[in-house]
């Protein structure tokens, strides 16, 4: 098993790492780049806790090989806030109590950010379907949906 040298851009910074061929992007992010914000809830693309952006689309990083990231642009939860300035979605999640245990929160925030980029004024139904691949077991989704709506309204203003 030989590793491959991979160069990609993560949260705006160029990074290099050696990826084993079978290693997922999630494991690379967590254990090679020390970006622990993406979580493995299932490893099969069913829970969305490992959501990151890959070349402008959201993906489950557990379903991407590290070697595939060659030349790619990747965004993780660690890149969402601007230093100490939280993204409006992050602030809205705190203000609206949209997290309880918080394990699903990084993935949901990354996914919701992409939704609002594509659709600044989503309906409740659009939010719910966009986030259907992000399982949350604590909140029943109510406060998550409300927080996304609130952040969207604030970002439109």
């Amino acid at each position: 098993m030989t590793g491959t040298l991979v160069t990609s851009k993560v949260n705006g910074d160029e990074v290099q790492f050696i990826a084993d061929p079978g290693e997922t992007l999630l494991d690379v992010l967590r254990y090679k780049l020390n970006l622990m914000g993406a979580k493995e809830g299932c490893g099969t693309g069913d829970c969305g806790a490992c959501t990151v952006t890959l070349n402008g689309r959201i993906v489950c990083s557990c379903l991407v090989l590290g070697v595939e990231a060659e030349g790619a642009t990747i965004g993780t939860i660690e890149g969402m806030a601007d230093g100490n300035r939280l993204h409006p979605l992050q602030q809205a999640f705190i203000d609206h109590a949209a997290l309880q245990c918080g394990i699903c929160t990084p993935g949901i925030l990354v996914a919701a950010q992409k939704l609002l980029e594509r659709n600044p004024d989503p309906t409740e139904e659009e939010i719910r379907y966009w986030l259907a691949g992000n399982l949350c077991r604590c909140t029943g989704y109510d406060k998550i949906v409300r927080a996304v709506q609130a952040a969207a309204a604030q970002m439109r203003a």
Partner: protein
Amino acid sequence: MALDQPRKFKYVGTRPARPDGIDKVTGRAQYGNDITAPGMLWAKVLRSPHAHARILSIDTSAAEALPGVRAIVTGADFPPIEGDAGMRDVQLNCMATTHVWYEGHAVAAVAATSQAIANKAARLIKVEYEILPHVTDVDAAMAPGAPVVREGQTMENVPAGMSANVTYHSEFGHGDLAAGFARADKIIERNFRTAATHQGYIEPQACLASMTADGRGELWTCTQGHFYFRTACAAILGIEASALRVTASEIGGGFGGKTQVWAEPVALALSKKAGKPVKLTMTRDEVFRGTGPTVTTSITCKIGMTKDGRITAGEATLRYSGGAFHTGTCDMGAMAAFASYDLDAVRTYGWNVLTNRPKEISYRAPGAPQAIYAVESTIDELCQLLNLDPLDVRIKNAAKAGTKSSYGVVFEEMGLLAALKAAKAHPHWNSPVPEGASRGVACGFWFNFGGNTCVSLNIGTDGTVAVSEGNPDIGGSRASISLMAAEELGVPYEKVRTVIADTGTLGYNDNTDGSRVTFAVGLATIRAAQEAKKDMMRRAAAIWGIDAEAVEWVDGAAVPAGPNAGKFPPMTLAEIAAQSFQTGGPIAGHCDFQADGAGVSFGVHIADVAVDQETGKTKVLRYTVFQDAGKAVHPDYVEGQMQGGAVQGIGMALNEEYIYSDKGVILNPGFLDYRIPVASDMPMIETVILEIPNPGHPYGVRGVGETPIVPPLATLTNAISRGIGKRLYELPMSPPRVLKAIKGH
């Protein structure tokens, strides 16, 4: 500690940002799998592919020969526990010895220099099994001649002549059943079945264990109770508790499922053997196969009612199986079943039955959702048969303060009637049922409890407050505890920081379970704050040169108690703290006690559903939760508990189930086919918090976390049954099952 009058709060009842909020929205919070150590090894557990088998041999030689493998453990590496049968079961569940009792039972574990090597090595371990007959169905396991899961587990209360799988029996209730049924105008008896369901926390069990050659250990893990984990790990490894320090990581959901050890003793044993830190993280598949789901049940419920809706007698037999191990869950179900009603004659019978399934562990109000589902469904069917309003019938029969409950306890002040009346007055109940939809209602109950609790509160010289508590924050409890400390001391919420102490720095705390934390830890925090306040008043008095009794605490400051005490301006907490080195040293309060007097909790749920008559698929259109929370310390997180619990209950009602093959193998060990609700399945969950103060808490706090999972099972059953014109008696009400009922075969 009764409340004289409704108390006015300054901080309690507000909705400030939670202290761990920024960490959790930026990805900084460290969960079980986010912790690493220098020189760490990676572990993998090998699990039984068979539902029931004798282990004939385990050959680890090929795995040991694999480069990178550092340690392998099997059941032989754990000294058998004598005396404590419950803990022996926990040990045998963590690692099988002579037998495997369910598919997924751990038989060996490997630690290696990478996860890939550990995985490969686990596959190289050769286990020779003699396959034994198995049984996974609770009714089949009770039948005479059923395959015996484990011999010799039967307790003294089981009548002779039953299947050896029946291990425990209990009976609760009071009154003359025969006379009660004789007074009824209508009596029905129905059989119900519920599937095993999983807590479905998004974070799989994960820990990092580090044992050193001197016999000391460190364990970092996601747990609902690191103190219990220390006790269990020490017992299972045969070491002293003080040799092990357990630190709770942030926890990615538990719902009861992380009140028991699975991975931790194995990781510690591997670390001990390898002489290196070991990281052990379960895969999702292992979580479903290897960790505790709920009981699976078969319940018979018989209720008699008069024409005007008075329940004259209720009787229920609850057959619960928590897998191959004894559990007390059937007691909880048998006690909870009829708790919502004021009955002259009531009897419940609990039976625990062994099956070849994973060891059950608590899931939010363990045992209650299933029992109350049966009772609430039966009542609803009677309401239909007698043409009575289901909410009025519940109001008519509701338990209240002074009612002798079905489990013997006479209730204190509690909020069932308030919740029922709020439901009746609510726009949801008073709106017309939408075209093509139907409506259901049901009640729910949980006992709530307190338990062993230890809190330290330290006042910093700058006037800030540090609270150390021992219960992992699973849904915002740090915020609630900080609010109560702020309230009691009269300092702003922002001046208080609450941290979760490890097992080396605080006395024992029971698990974060039973809806106990806001109640019990809150009470301990209030008492610790009172102790610190007393000390500060004493110091203010000394500075002023007056009697300590002449000082009282008002709005965060010591003040003279009256005109006779002397004229001094208030001395604030910060001012007293700043002078603490001159006035006797650090200021602290401490409380270690057993919190008792938790208040019972009741809720009422209303659902509107639309059933697709051609496919049997249910859509929840509208859902409202009414619950007595006692005083809601942080209403956002009270609502969050009510919404989250309700949606978990909706999952139980509609789609969640363990599906077994005829070989006793779980067919759906993943989120793909174990179908928890997704965002697009749900409507908004409306909440109505009622605040009937708990007389056992100075602020009136009850627990809120568990009750909301209870009512949805019957609420949806009642709504769907009314919608399709056929009664449903089995959960989940998956589309094939509903369609079958609609089509009448």
